[in-house]
């Protein structure tokens, strides 16, 4: 799966979770850029990504993420090893 496809799917997830249909996510987007991105929203993003890409994340992997781009990379890495 390409980074572009992953980004598109993740953008739809973010738009749904934050209920912002026009929200634009970039690789550099992080929690500080979205006012409603709290701990519960974070869990919802992770669970939605797990379901969308049929992968699972370990807590240690998630703690190392600094922005959305890091998550794209982690997802792509997991998919390539699936």
């Amino acid at each position, binding site marked *: 799966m390409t980074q572009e496809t992953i980004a598109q799917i993740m953008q739809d997830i973010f738009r749904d979770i934050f209920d912002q249909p026009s929200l634009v996510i970039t690789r550099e987007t992080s929690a500080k850029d979205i006012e409603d991105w709290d701990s*519960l929203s974070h*869990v*919802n993003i*992770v*669970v939605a990504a*797990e*379901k969308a890409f049929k992968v*699972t*994340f*370990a*807590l240690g*992997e*998630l703690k190392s993420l600094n922005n959305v781009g890091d998550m794209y990379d982690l997802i792509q890495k997991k998919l390539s090893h699936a």
Partner: protein
Amino acid sequence: MREFKYEDLSLGQSEEFSVVLTKEMMDLFLRISGDTNPLHVDAVYAKSKGFKDQVAYGMLVASFYSQLVGVYLPGRFCLLHGIETSFHKPAFITDTLHVSGEITYLNAAYRQIEIKASIRNQSEDIISKAKIKAGTLE
């Protein structure tokens, strides 16, 4: 009270219990919520609108989802994250409600579970459905 920790939980695991809706519950919910809508407090009005009696508060019925997760699944170590609920048929005083839930997803990283839940009456009619997200403290 169940004391399931995250490690004790698995996909498809389920719990259920039954409860009888009482007039006292309705009166207490009226005091707590301040919802004086006549559909819930005036039997004559409710009957004039086609119901057999005063209609139980939907949120009173849904409050049993709190017991489902807080007492049964996962029980003691529950931290409720959210509930999406819908109401499909009215419930009435003296109805016996069967509350059930089944785990449909587990997230190990954050120890969150998702539960598909429903409430049926004594005739097996679905009164309410819910999708519940709950964390486990242990």
